[in-house]
């Protein structure tokens, strides 16, 4: 009896838009599991890791980075067509990243203040997440993404099930780990109550306030958090800065950032 032909391995593509590459590096950072990942998936397109670049279609496409140019937008539309599962990785790809701060200012003025010849620029006035442009199957939060969540999403894709990506607050993770509440015990401003879990409560574990790099939780009560932040001494400017980072493009954080921004006369 002839031996059955081995099933071809699912093809993986890793695509980068406007980003720092840190999230794709998280994949290469899966040191212990990297060989197993390479064994289970055919890494077909991953310029950061290999010069072998295979054409689509792909079974799983990981997209890093935000949409900042018209070219990005067109590329995404094509990518969606040739990807069975399309998963965004990181704050840039989910909410526009730190570069979404441009969304809160006049783009022409900003361009003039940075570039001697802004006329050579060909970019959009805003930085946005991928899901604003094409349908996305799953989103991985974080700046950068969490390695174990990245593996979970790949494992789930391989076995045809939904990944487990909890949406609750960082607080629950702190309490499971026995991490002391930095707001209640130290008076430190912390975005943990409004931020989605997934990081393993990394900052509070080192007595630092959460800075919201995983973006809004399932129930981001930013308005209820405002008096809490004020009670531990955070001014409006402090609060604007707290929300004005990697997930400022997420509406819950961006709206509060805008409201707290000092008014410039």
């Amino acid at each position, binding site marked *: 009896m002839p031996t059955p032909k081995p099933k071809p391995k699912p093809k993986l593509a890793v695509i980068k838009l406007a980003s720092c590459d840190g999230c794709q590096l998280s994949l290469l950072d899966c040191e212990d*599991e990297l060989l*197993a*990942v390479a*064994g*289970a998936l055919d890494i077909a397109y991953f310029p950061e890791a290999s010069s072998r670049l295979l054409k689509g279609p792909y079974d799983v496409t990981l997209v890093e980075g935000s949409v900042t140019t018209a070219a990005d937008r067109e590329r995404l539309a094509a990518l969606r067509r040739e990807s069975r599962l399309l998963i965004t990785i990181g704050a840039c790809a989910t909410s526009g990243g730190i570069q979404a701060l441009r969304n809160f200012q006049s783009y022409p003025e900003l361009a003039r203040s940075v570039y001697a010849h802004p006329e050579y620029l060909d970019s959009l006035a805003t930085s946005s997440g991928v899901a604003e442009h094409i349908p996305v199957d799953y989103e991985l939060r974080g700046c950068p993404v969490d390695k174990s969540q990245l*593996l*979970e999403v*790949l*494992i789930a894709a*391989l*076995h045809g099930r939904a990944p*487990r990506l*909890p*949406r*609750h*607050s960082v*607080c*629950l993770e702190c*309490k*499971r*780990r*026995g991490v*002391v*509440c930095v*707001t*209640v*015990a*130290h*008076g430190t401003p*912390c975005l*943990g*109550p*409004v931020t989605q879990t997934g990081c393993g409560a990394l900052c509070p574990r080192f*007595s630092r306030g959460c800075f919201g790099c995983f973006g809004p*939780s*399932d*129930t981001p*009560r930013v*308005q*209820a*958090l405002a*008096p*809490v932040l004020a*009670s531990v001494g955070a001014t409006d400017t402090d609060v604007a800065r707290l929300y004005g980072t990697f997930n400022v493009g997420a509406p819950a954080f961006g709206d509060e950032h805008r409201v707290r921004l000092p008014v410039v006369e």
Partner: protein
Amino acid sequence: MSSIRTLSPPFVLPRARLDDLFERLRARGYRVIGPRVRDGVIVLDTVKSSADLPVGYTDEHAPGRYRLRRRNDDAVFGFVVGPDSFKRTFLVPVQRLFRARRDGDRVRFSPEPVDTSKVALVGARGCDLAAIETQDEILAEGAHADPFYVARREAAFIVAVSCSESRSSCFCTSFGTGPRPTRGFDLSLTELLDGPHRFLVEIGSAEALEIATELGLSTASEQDQGAAAGIALRTSRGMERQLDTQGLREMLLSRLEHPHWQDVGSRCLACTNCTAVCPTCFCVDIVDKSSLDGESHERTRQHDSCFSADYSAVHGHPVRNDVAARYRQWLTHKLATWIDQFGRSGCVGCGRCITWCPAAIDLTREVARLRDDVSLETDP
């Protein structure tokens, strides 16, 4: 495990011999878990000797605020409860349930062994003991006993401590759970700071009596017993916070559509802290994890909270999207429907949910406002 209060007249243990008690516990194979200072808070963790305890420390509590302070004496237990409770010891935050491996056409299951290692809990307060008793009824007794909980619970030796001071979050007297432990301990200490620094030792189990005998403790004088009773009375009388439990279940269940739920819902962060620090909240989530090659699998359970949206997800979508509905669910379960379900209140008056709510939501105040309609309009 459970015990009655006095198997013998009380003894007295000099402060200088507290480490002998630790040594006896260790000699009997117990790992000692007790209060110790970490990151500016009194947490529960492994303690090796009395030097690890928060000697000379005390705690300040207010809604949404906790601070550690130095005392001007060397009291060993001169504080109340921190964010941790012994729930972490018995219903551990993350518990593996089983592992499974594919073996040809079959799947082989390896059940997770239960943990029977002996643990001595030092410093359980009256409210803590009531919380353990409450969880015992749910997780150790009845038709749905949890083997992991039962194993840890049966391997525990409990050294209770009578509270000699209360803090502003405390309201154990409203539920009659403290300040003096009356049952549910193996051994109970009351710290006496007048005269020579010493502890009144009450015996709640045969093993505790053996330990007291091994230590050669002398019987407590009537003065020492009177001093301990006086401390408990003073602590009770000094407790300012109250929760009116009279008709509480009926009151809450008759106000399910009250506008005050929206008021508290507007302040609530839905952050889950109250449920996480509550020593009786027992909700867990089940988590499945598979390997990359699909050959192995493990299932764990972890503490969960009714304040997260996905807790109430049915067919993929939460049924309690409104935060007011989540707070109502928690409060009415804790104080009202818990009674229908388990025959007692789910609250023991420890005050953890008050201190550790970042938004300073105070359940005693919310209940008072629900009870007293009139104050709703005038209360700022």
